């Protein structure tokens, strides 16, 4: 691995690192999709993971999110080894992911998509069978109010009662982003949030991400648009053939021969 910044030296992570990924390896049928990936995500900034198709970015996101088991290596979140935790346990700690393909709950309304994401809901406990609505009504109203606040912020209020499955591709992306925010995350893994979105909406999503990071949210962004990465991300890790080949700012990486060879040209 070629390191361009002090913060990216393997296994010597800064105290401000919220997420540390160490020497991850994962194969599919003998082909190593991830082959010793090591990088970290600093608190309060957007870190981007870029690389050509097939570099292993989505597999890394899958491993960090808990959907994919690594063959070796570890994932450390807030100083705690979470490699063996299930996705829902990671979400409970504040590590929430979105998906490359639309993952909205199709037959739930937009507002329900947001409300369902709120953590620790009393009405989801099995004892709700015995106590009924009175045990969760007040909390539900608080959650709905918060979800409506987000809809207002993202200018989606008028869509609140529509089925999420009927929205356009870009609107579904927004719903997924709002839904992740409803889960009260500390770190959001965004897997190509602007893929297939029209340029106007993509710029708006970019604006929202800037606002959110200014509010203290940390993000790991997988993105193909290098201009977007340059505008949004303080730190970038470049993957090729399952390995992190360089880290640094986008300006630094544009001059890096291995990156140019693996990604910008190839």
């Amino acid at each position: 691995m070629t390191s361009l910044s002090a913060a990216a030296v393997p296994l010597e992570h800064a105290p401000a690192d919220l997420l540390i990924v160490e020497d991850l390896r994962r194969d599919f049928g003998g082909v190593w999709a991830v082959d010793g990936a090591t990088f970290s995500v600093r608190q309060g900034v957007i870190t981007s993971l870029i690389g050509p198709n097939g570099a292993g970015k989505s597999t890394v996101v899958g491993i960090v999110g808990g959907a994919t088991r690594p063959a070796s290596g570890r994932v450390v979140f807030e100083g705690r080894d979470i490699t063996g935790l299930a996705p829902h346990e990671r979400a409970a700690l504040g590590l929430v992911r979105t998906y490359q393909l639309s993952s909205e709950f199709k037959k739930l309304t937009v507002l329900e998509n947001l409300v369902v994401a709120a953590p620790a809901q009393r009405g989801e406990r099995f004892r709700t069978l015995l106590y009924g609505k009175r045990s969760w009504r007040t909390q539900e109203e608080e959650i709905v109010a918060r979800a409506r606040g987000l809809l207002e912020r993202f200018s989606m209020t008028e869509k609140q009662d529509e089925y999420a499955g009927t929205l356009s591709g870009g609107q579904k992306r927004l719903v997924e982003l709002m839904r992740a925010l409803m889960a009260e995350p500390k770190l959001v893994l965004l897997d190509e949030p602007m893929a297939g979105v029209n340029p106007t909406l993509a710029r708006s999503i970019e604006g929202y991400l800037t606002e959110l990071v200014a509010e203290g949210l940390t993000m790991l962004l997988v993105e193909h648009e290098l201009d977007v990465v340059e505008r949004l991300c303080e730190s970038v890790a470049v993957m090729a053939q399952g390995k992190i080949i360089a880290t640094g700012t986008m300006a630094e990486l544009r001059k890096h021969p291995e990156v140019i060879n693996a990604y910008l040209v190839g």
Partner: protein
Amino acid sequence: MSHAVSFYLSTILVYLGVDILSCWSLNLQYGVAGIYNFAWVAFQAIGAYTAGVLTLGPSSGNGGFQQYIIGASLPFPVPILAAGAVSGALALVVGLVTLRRLRTDYQAMVMLVISVIATLVVTNVIGLFNGPAGISLIPQPLESTLNLSPLGYQWFYVLLTAAFTAFVYVFVHRITSSPLGRALRATRDHEDAAQALGKDTVKLKLFVFVFGNAIAGISGALLVMFIGAWSPGSWMYVETLVVLTAIIVGGTGNDFGVMLGAMLVPVAFNEATRFLPPIGRPGLIDALQWIVIGLLGLGFLWFWPRGIVPERRRRFPSRIAAPLGPPVDRRRPLGRARVGASASSPIAEPTP
């Protein structure tokens, strides 16, 4: 109303109650949680057998012409509640094996195999529930205590079935109308995304699988105590498809829709074929009935997939307004980002 019509009507109403319970049971699993339980009828059957062997008394009774396990004479309503408990317990075991690793089509195939294996086991292990002949002469609840005429008892059983149906509905409604039901529907729509948002989807599915199959057990108990007999021929795997078709026709995921489905498919459709004049060789109408039920399900899935009464769109009261003021929790190091409303550029994109 003549005696015969009254008798027929009361019988139909009991069947309707049992079918409504059946449809709610499977709808919770398939319609709400997206579990493909093609072994559903096996859980109804285990409920029926449980209620039977807890009511019949020792197998040496009645001349010892049938063999079965346990052979108790428990008072009403213990056998019915026990039927639900045993079906639920069995569902827990099956669920722990099938729901943790398998999804959708694989789950469906395993369930179908479980259903077939269960029929084969009960048919071939004679000492369990009297093999292919099944158990019979099951006493009806409170019959000797109430001392009613046969018709009077029929109507008592209608009330009994209605009471159980109402009792079960309270709990079914509490699930489907609560955040628990919403989490289950989210799991149905996209399990990975639900997990990524913190939902323990295996636990959720296991819960609804156990609860739904406990209802199946109760429906089996009510049915067997009404008809007095139960054999492997009563619960072939295709019976699950009848209930599934009723759900698809009535409206998947809608409690009232599936009630309507229960009226239309297992009750009205089955009864209507009784009045057809005999055509072709004996048994042809029965065979055609299965084909038509299959076509009915496919037709609805193709042309009317949401059913006659579609799943209800949940709207929240407009009085619950968005919070006023600035976004909360700005710059909270290592704290949860509770992002609220703040000024931003409008981004509304037209729906295509």
